[in-house]
């Protein structure tokens, strides 16, 4: 026994030493060479075709979880077959992503391609794109991408990122039509109507709203997603907040929506279990018929049908989040995007990859094979809306506005903190006013560290 174990250890030691030495030896010449040398043999061993006659290049691609969809990886395999360029995806857990990226950028160890959330206020402060990212303004696909999205990927009139995302993925209320029909309810057009709908549903023994608070981010949606309505109620508010001419604390419309969210909670419309509910269980719980509504995007019905045998996507309809009597459609053109690193030795190959991904037939492939997408932010792709989704966009699509986390600076980075504040409000430890004060405090902290001249 003893002998076997020590033999094993010695073998492991010897093997490991050899590979370790081989590696560091390579590294002495050039770091790029070492990453290729070590990944090349295992690639060949894997299913991918051998690419010896083509370019032998590996592009490292750092991204946060959920940013890279399965079909994109499939496309990358095809891309490698054609060009010999291999994409080495390094998918980082989302809570670690930003720190890892920041550390690598600061140390000049950036990967060839890196992911980042676009947003016209964030590209400079968060990613320092002028020093870290390659200017993509003159790429062919820029002309085909939705200008709203391009705006969010632009810093000082240069485009720095490619965004391929679903423009129709607004956070709205998805409701169970069967429950509404059974109780004789119709789509609420105001907050007051929403309250009475919830009341009726609750009286029938069904929990009106499925709200997964435990994830920490989902319940925040109720607040900044209403940007379209805030601007309608208090025109120019967003502009004043951006320039620090107005505080969140003093904006009555913001306090109103938080108070209404709290009212829904305190009246028990989220059920007893909201604090423990998880986002991942949304499909299961919505299909169970124990919940009537939830905040999600229009892709949910299809996901439910896929996840729960016997359920049907046709049973679900949509309407906008009705806090503050909102009837407009919230849109968010900021989304996970791809940047090319300035320090990359393979900038041309990376651009080639972007060009490949944005070929119309490849975009269509991506859309058709990604269950969470119903449309893409590029002209020329055919969206896969069904009847219910079409009806929703026909009704509400005329009046749209940008969500607050994208429209207002220094708000998105504190998303999780707002989540904690809102949970504290649920537990009656904070008031809506306290939450707004905290938001102001954190915005000030962020603005000052960014040396924003509007905060002195």
């Amino acid at each position, binding site marked *: 026994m003893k002998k076997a174990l020590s033999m094993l250890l010695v073998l492991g030691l010897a093997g490991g030493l050899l590979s370790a030495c081989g*590696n560091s030896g390579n590294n002495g010449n050039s770091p790029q060479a070492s990453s290729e040398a070590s990944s090349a043999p295992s690639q060949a061993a894997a299913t991918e075709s051998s690419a010896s006659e083509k370019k032998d290049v590996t592009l490292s691609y750092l991204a946060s979880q959920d940013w890279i969809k399965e079909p994109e990886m499939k496309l990358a395999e095809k891309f490698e077959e054609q060009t010999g360029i291999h994409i080495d995806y390094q998918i980082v857990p989302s809570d670690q992503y930003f720190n890892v990226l920041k550390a690598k950028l600061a140390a000049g160890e950036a990967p060839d391609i890196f992911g980042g959330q676009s947003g016209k206020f964030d590209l400079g402060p968060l990613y320092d794109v002028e020093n870290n990212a390659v200017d993509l303004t003159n790429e062919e696909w820029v002309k085909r991408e939705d200008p709203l999205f391009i705006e969010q990927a632009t810093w000082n009139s240069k485009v720095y990122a490619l965004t391929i995302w679903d423009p129709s993925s607004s956070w709205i209320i998805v409701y169970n039509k069967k429950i509404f029909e059974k109780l004789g309810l119709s789509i609420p057009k105001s907050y007051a109507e929403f309250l009475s709908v919830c009341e009726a549903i609750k009286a029938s023994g069904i929990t009106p709203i499925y709200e997964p608070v435990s994830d920490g981010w989902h319940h925040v949606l109720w607040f900044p997603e209403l940007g379209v309505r805030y601007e309608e109620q208090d025109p120019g508010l967003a502009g004043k907040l951006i320039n620090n001419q107005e505080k969140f604390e003093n904006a009555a419309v913001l306090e109103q929506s938080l108070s209404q969210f709290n009212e829904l909670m305190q009246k028990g419309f989220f059920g007893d279990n909201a604090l423990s509910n998880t986002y991942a269980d949304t499909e299961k719980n919505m299909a169970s018929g124990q919940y009537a509504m939830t905040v999600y995007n229009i892709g949910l019905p299809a996901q439910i049908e896929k996840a729960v045998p016997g359920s049907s996507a046709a049973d679900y309809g949509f309407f906008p989040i009705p806090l503050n009597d909102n009837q407009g459609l919230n849109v968010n053109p900021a989304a996970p995007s791809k940047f090319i690193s300035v320090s990359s030795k393979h900038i041309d190959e990376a651009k080639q990859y972007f060009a490949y991904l944005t070929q119309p037939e490849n975009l269509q492939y991506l859309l058709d094979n990604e269950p969470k997408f119903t449309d893409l932010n590029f002209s020329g792709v055919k969206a896969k809306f069904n009847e219910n989704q079409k009806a929703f966009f026909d009704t509400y699509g005329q009046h749209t506005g940008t969500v607050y986390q994208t429209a207002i600076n220094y708000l998105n980075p504190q998303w999780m903190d707002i989540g904690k504040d809102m949970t504290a409000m649920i537990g009656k430890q904070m008031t809506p006013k306290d939450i707004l004060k905290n938001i102001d405090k954190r915005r000030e902290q962020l603005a000052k560290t960014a040396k924003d001249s509007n905060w002195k």
Partner: protein
Amino acid sequence: MKNKWMRNSILNLVIGLISIIAIIPILLIVINAFKTSYEASSMNFNLPAELQFQNFSTVIEKGKLVHSFFNSFAYSSISSLFCILFSAMAAYVLARNKTRINRVVYLFILMGIALPMNYFTLIDVMQWTELINTRAGIIVLYMVTQIPFSVFILYGFIGGVPRELDEAGVIDGCGPKRLFFSVIFPMLQPAAVTVFILSFLNTWNEFLLPLYYLNSAQKWPMTLAVYNFFGQFQQSWNLVSADIILTILPVVILYLLGQRFIIAGMTSGSVKG
């Protein structure tokens, strides 16, 4: 006699209960690893209608576990072995020759148990030493993170190894190297095995260092694969469970092997606390 029987059965009951509490969550994982995705949607102890062995092959394929398993194994075992060797050498001299300087050095090293890792500044050091993005670099880092604690344990243990052994060695004409490697080091076996297991464990379960200091997913360890797996397959508890089992299995096996090792080392009775 009856009294003793009573006492024994109570003791057995107590430990049995505690063991059940310890294992229930793990059993939950094992049972759900063999279910279909739908059966496992709420984790419970209902038995699966049919054992789904293909969950494991799915996980191995989708999670790319084979490759990352070998990475993890190399990182953990090599770093732990070097850690024991260097720590034992240091602890031995520090414990035997308690000069003022050595006491300070000992406390200085112990401070490392409390010293937090700073990922941002460490990246600079990794660049200076040209160890960044190499497997060797990760091994060195894992070794270093375990050194303070290992020195601490081995230092205490060496205190219990009789000095007469050293003297006998000197009389036999040993030099310091031979004395340490052929007389002292073998005596440290029980402590060394404990240190090895603990350090292997910590290293096996760690995944942040590779994120920061390696630039290729090919070199990533198993735990990182698991972490990413959760994000992708959160709704499939059966796959997540299978993934968890495959990840902890190697460490459990190591512990099973190591545990016999400890006992074998102890039977000689030459070491007394």
